């Protein structure tokens, strides 16, 4: 992958006030990433690791506590509301639950036309034609135009959500668990559609999922998140076939039916982002924990390089 950077995030932080007391919930705690043009960057991790918060931060759907986000070299955090709204054409999101994210009172035709209307794209006739093209592109037909979301199955609703997301011809599509609510036979239809659209429309994806086999299938590079930080990154094959971080190792080995080696069963639950452990934040559950891990955070990984893990096992890095 040699494309130029489309999206760069530098040291993004999102802290919330803790639910009880005066503490902080460190939802995203210093994340840097880079998405190259034409690339699919997979983000994996379990509930509460911060992956969905990260997705919303890079789209500026929520404001970060600190950090920078550059889209095509432009700092989107510095944009004024009007300019940001115009910039939104370039970055869209598809959510997990296509039922919750489609307005039940709007016809499918209006749902897909809405972003075109808001951004005043073309004449009404052109928009109408565009909506029909979009329906065909995602594998539906004209008959869907006047129907309502509830008349469609989960897979079809996800197609509608995708049609709406690509209506403005964005450069970046963030896919947040786009197939997690779907049955296997439907999941593969939607994955094929996404892979096909990416090359047809020259898109770049950030693909968030808890399902490692799905992420491996679609991603060029993969980031693994744990408790608000990226603990490992590399090519999909490196990260998911030869994991280096003990957390990634456990994650990969825990996938049921994947008979690659012995299952590593981690003890306990991931700690709350409101009580991030000192030292390496994975140390209380780490099967390979060393003394240093309990008090010293491991050196952070340089983004954009080869496979690397944020872990003391791999020692301090030169340079």
């Amino acid at each position, binding site marked *: 992958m040699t494309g130029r950077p489309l999206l760069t995030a530098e040291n993004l932080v999102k802290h919330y006030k803790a639910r009880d007391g005066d503490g902080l919930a460190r939802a995203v705690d210093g994340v840097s990433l880079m998405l190259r043009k034409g690339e699919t960057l997979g983000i994996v991790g379990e509930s509460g690791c911060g992956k969905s918060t990260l997705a919303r931060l890079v789209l500026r759907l929520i404001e970060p506590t600190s950090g920078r986000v550059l889209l095509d070299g432009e700092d989107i955090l510095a944009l004024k509301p009007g300019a940001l709204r115009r910039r939104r054409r370039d970055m869209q999101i598809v959510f997990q639950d296509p039922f919750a994210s489609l307005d039940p009172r709007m016809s499918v035709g209006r749902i897909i036309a809405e972003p075109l209307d808001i951004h005043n794209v073309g004449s009404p006739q052109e928009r109408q034609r565009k909506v029909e093209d979009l329906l065909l592109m995602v594998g539906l037909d004209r008959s869907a135009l006047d129907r309502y979301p509830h008349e469609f*199955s989960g897979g079809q609703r996800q197609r509608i959500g995708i049609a709406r997301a690509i209506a403005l011809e964005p450069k970046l599509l963030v896919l947040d668990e786009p197939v997690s609510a779907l049955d296997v036979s439907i999941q593969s239809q939607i*994955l094929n559609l996404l892979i096909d659209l990416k090359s047809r429309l020259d898109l770049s994806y950030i693909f968030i999922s*808890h399902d490692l086999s799905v992420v491996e*299938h679609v991603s060029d590079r993969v980031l693994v998140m744990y408790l608000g930080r990226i603990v490992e990154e590399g090519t999909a094959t490196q990260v998911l076939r030869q994991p280096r971080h003990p957390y990634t190792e456990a994650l990969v080995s*825990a996938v049921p039916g994947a008979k690659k080696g012995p299952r590593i069963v981690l003890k306990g639950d991931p700690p709350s982002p409101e009580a991030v452990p000192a030292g390496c934040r994975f140390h209380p559950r780490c099967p390979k924990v060393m003394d240093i891990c309990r008090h010293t955070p491991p050196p952070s990984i340089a983004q954009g390089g080869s496979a690397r893990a944020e872990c003391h096992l791999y020692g301090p890095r030169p340079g």
Partner: protein
Amino acid sequence: MTETKPALLSVRGLSIGFATEEGPIRVVEDVSFTVAAGETMGLVGESGCGKSVTAQTIMRLLPSPPSRIEAGSIDFDGQDLAQADEAAMRRIRGDKIAMIFQEPMTSLNPTMTIGEQIGEVLLLHRGLRARDARPKVFEMLTQVGIGRPEKRYAQYPHELSGGLRQRVMIAMALICGPKLLIADEPTTALDVTIQAQILELMQALQRESRIATLLITHDLGVVEEMCDHVVVMYAGRIAEKAPAKELFANPRHPYTAGLLAAAPRNAKRGQTLITIPGTVPPPGKRGQGCSFAERCVRALPRCRQDVPPLTGDGHLAACWNPVP
């Protein structure tokens, strides 16, 4: 079936219907399978295939009306549960047959402490007094891997993580030493590392107690890891039934073969995945012949006319043109 172990649970020709505004519809049709002690039987299929309705009917948890057992028997430990009345079922549920569900938060009582809920089962089925149940609850909590049981006993469900809540469900299910455990998507709501913990716990408990398990899941990976035998359901009927290893090595029904092929883990990275076109037909719109025919790459003219019988020796498939 090739198994020689005597069946603990034997479901025969079970058909279940629902009364709807548009008249009665069949949601489960002619389902038969057995589960022996110490064995795990997987009941797999996608949303709407009838797997959960089947499981809940075995427990007689579905209100009737609208649900109705239209044919068949559910022999469990010498008794036909299809004919059992509510009083008899109440004695069986939680005692000889226990069930765990996908979302423990909705099946645990939010106003009772963990300990009281687990202990209540003993009060109900064993006539124990609360203070006599207490040490048994501690013991059970320890057995399902919950540390500091005295502290947990007094906690409420919302104070626990999803993984711990599922352990509490398992403790509650197992405290009377049931012969059969029905687990309906027990790990679907859990993260993968927590799922690994729960699956390992279920395997360990089964080794110790020789309990029979009916595991309902949509996840073929979980089936591969946990099950001895598998029943694959599609649109209310059994599509295929086989020993788990055999099913994964040689799926015979095109639906099973399609499901296995469609999983990204069985495909080359980035390549077009094999798909099953279309969607599952809803009950009442399942056509005349095989309900999978409309989506099937191997369909013959006959498939649209006649329902294929479930045939085979040990490895059964309901298909007129099975995968060779």
